[in-house]
């Protein structure tokens, strides 16, 4: 060895002696760093023999690092003598690329493994560093979450109630399968997800009123935050109505505030309620009818009997005593009139019964001639009264849909105007006009009289004989009840006002409107 060579060797040794402590320090620090990491780290050679591993890796199989060095990776963690299927290290050693995968050990533990290639000076792969994280708990939580989600999704989907989740603006975010049957069209629930309620309630014309209803519910819910319940009908394109009972609440889904809308099909209950209500109405009507007929017998028929009975008794008395013979004709006349009155009463009861059973057929009828005929007959019947009847705006020819009962309307009103009139001159003004109500053209007739008038509290009751408390009955006869029934049957209306507003004593104005037939 040359002097220079010796010198170099000495310097090299001296240099190595100087570097060694530094290297040792670095080595110690490296070990400290790697040991303090919770991930499992193992350095393997190309045959997957463990060359080095950190404490966490050794602890994971309850061994010391020294015991595991030289062991095969798959025999330590998989207790297997074969390379694991889809082992990332195996792939890495073949491809030279960083790889990762999840591997579950036979003991049920799951690791997320990432492999990094370790290359030699020439860039050739000489081994791999395996970094593994135990994700067993994470996987279990994930699994539990999936199971839980499945369980709730199953409950959500199998619920017979429609469950819809809306955002605060009213857009449907999610809904279950049961929602299908609550839709107005044949669209499936999935088709409406992402749509605003304004859109899907707008499909059917009859469901459009649900839009303002839902808007008010939404606003109230956002304002008060309290659960709301309500019933609403859904019209189906296929026909029919579905009744729903809704329970609407604000809920938190994650960090978002949502609206939960649960709807229950209550159609059967609603129909049963409606049927019950209709039965109750029918029962009440039948009860009122019985009272009505009872009332006729207790008042009108008995008055007729009283007339006939007293007339007969007075005739008998006259015959016995052979006096007042001239009065007998008058008494016989009373008997005749009472028999006629009884006949009319029975006829009116029959007509009422026919109207209630809706047995009558309506045809196009001209009314001015009918009215004039009734006026002529009235003047003849009340020839002992001074009567002046005027017609204003006589249309000469005007048609309505009516039947043979039309004269009864005019007759009853005009007779009442004469009977309940104490003026020496009975004045009746009949005014014709036309009005439009709810898009329908009506003929309006006003019968303005100078009779005794009708007290404000009686103005509705005079049409309701048989449907009011006995103490309120005022004995105007069957006439106005019949008139109201006939007018109602003709799809018209009748009511009474004061001739002079606010002063009933000046007379009445009976107003009738009947749909005009063109």
């Amino acid at each position, binding site marked *: 060895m040359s002097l220079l060579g010796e010198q170099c060797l000495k310097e090299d040794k001296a240099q190595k002696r100087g570097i060694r402590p530094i290297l040792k320090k670095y080595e110690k620090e490296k070990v400290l760093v790697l040991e303090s990491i919770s991930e499992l780290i193992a350095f393997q050679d190309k045959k997957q023999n463990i060359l080095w591993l950190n404490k966490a890796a050794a602890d994971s199989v309850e061994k010391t690092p020294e015991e595991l060095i030289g062991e095969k990776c798959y025999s330590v963690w998989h207790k297997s003598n074969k390379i694991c299927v889809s082992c990332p290290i195996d792939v890495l050693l073949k491809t030279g690329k960083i790889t990762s995968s999840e591997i579950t050990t036979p003991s049920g533990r799951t690791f997320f493994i990432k492999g990094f290639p370790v290359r030699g000076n020439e860039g050739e792969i000489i081994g791999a560093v395996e970094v593994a994280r135990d994700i067993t708990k994470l996987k279990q939580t994930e699994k539990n979450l999936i199971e839980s989600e499945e369980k709730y999704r199953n409950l959500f989907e199998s619920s017979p109630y429609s469950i819809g989740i809306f955002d605060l603006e009213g857009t449907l975010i999610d809904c279950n399968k049961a929602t299908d049957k609550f839709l107005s069209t044949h669209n499936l629930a999935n088709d409406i997800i992402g749509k605003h309620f304004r859109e899907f309630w707008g499909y059917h014309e009859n469901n459009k009123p649900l839009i303002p209803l839902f808007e008010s519910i939404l606003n109230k819910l956002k304002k008060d935050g309290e659960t709301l319940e309500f019933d609403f009908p859904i019209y189906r394109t296929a026909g029919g109505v579905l009744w729903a009972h809704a329970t609407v609440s604000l809920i938190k889904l994650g960090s978002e505030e949502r609206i939960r809308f649960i709807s229950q099909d209550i159609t059967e209950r609603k129909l049963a309620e409606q049927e019950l209500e209709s039965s109750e109405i029918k029962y009440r009507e039948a009860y009122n009818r019985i009272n009505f007929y009872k009332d006729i017998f*207790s*008042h009108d028929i*008995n*008055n007729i*009997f*009283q*007339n006939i*009975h*007293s*007339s007969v*008794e*007075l005739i008998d*008395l006259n015959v016995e005593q052979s006096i007042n013979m001239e*009065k007998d004709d*008058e*008494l016989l006349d*009373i008997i005749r*009139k*009472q028999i006629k009155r009884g006949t009319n009463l029975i006829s009116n009861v029959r007509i009422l019964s026919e109207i209630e059973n809706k047995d009558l057929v309506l045809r196009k009828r001209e009314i001015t001639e009918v009215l004039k005929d009734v006026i002529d007959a009235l003047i003849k019947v009340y020839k002992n009264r001074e009567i002046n009847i005027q017609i204003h705006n006589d249309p000469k020819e005007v048609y309505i849909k009516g039947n043979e009962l039309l004269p009864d309307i005019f007759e009853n009103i005009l007779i009442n105007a004469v009977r*309940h009139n*104490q003026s020496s001159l009975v004045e009746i003004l009949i005014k014709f006009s036309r009005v439009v109500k709810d898009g329908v053209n009506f003929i309006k007739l006003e019968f303005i009289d100078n009779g*005794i008038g009708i*007290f404000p509290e009686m103005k509705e009751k005079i049409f309701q004989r048989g449907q009011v408390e*006995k*103490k309120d*009955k*005022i*004995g*105007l006869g069957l006439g106005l009840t019949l008139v109201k029934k006939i007018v109602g049957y003709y799809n018209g209306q009748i009511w009474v006002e004061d001739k002079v507003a606010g002063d009933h004593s000046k007379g009445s104005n009976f107003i009738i409107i009947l749909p005009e037939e063109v």
Partner: protein
Amino acid sequence: MEDDLSLQKLYEMMISTFGFKVVGKANNGKEAIEKYYALTNKPDIILMDHRMPVQNGIDTALILLKLKNPPKIIFTSADISIKKRALTLDGLRFLEKPFTIKALHDEIRELLEIS
């Protein structure tokens, strides 16, 4: 007091047959009260129907019975519920329609004997 004009006429005939005088007739309760106040010779007895336009019999009777020297009242009605109400009022008699001339005569005679 009766709104059935033929009955009004028959009552008048019956009462005249008994030898009494009809001092006034009314078609309804309101008219009856007005006529009662206007009459110089007040009637001893009023024959009163219940169901009439403007003001019914019971309401009219309640007003008349509050007077200092109230008239005797014979109520005529076919309505049993009215009979119950009418008989709770002092000084009221009740004749159920249809009644006989004799029944009316007996009621009038009894009332006049009492007074």
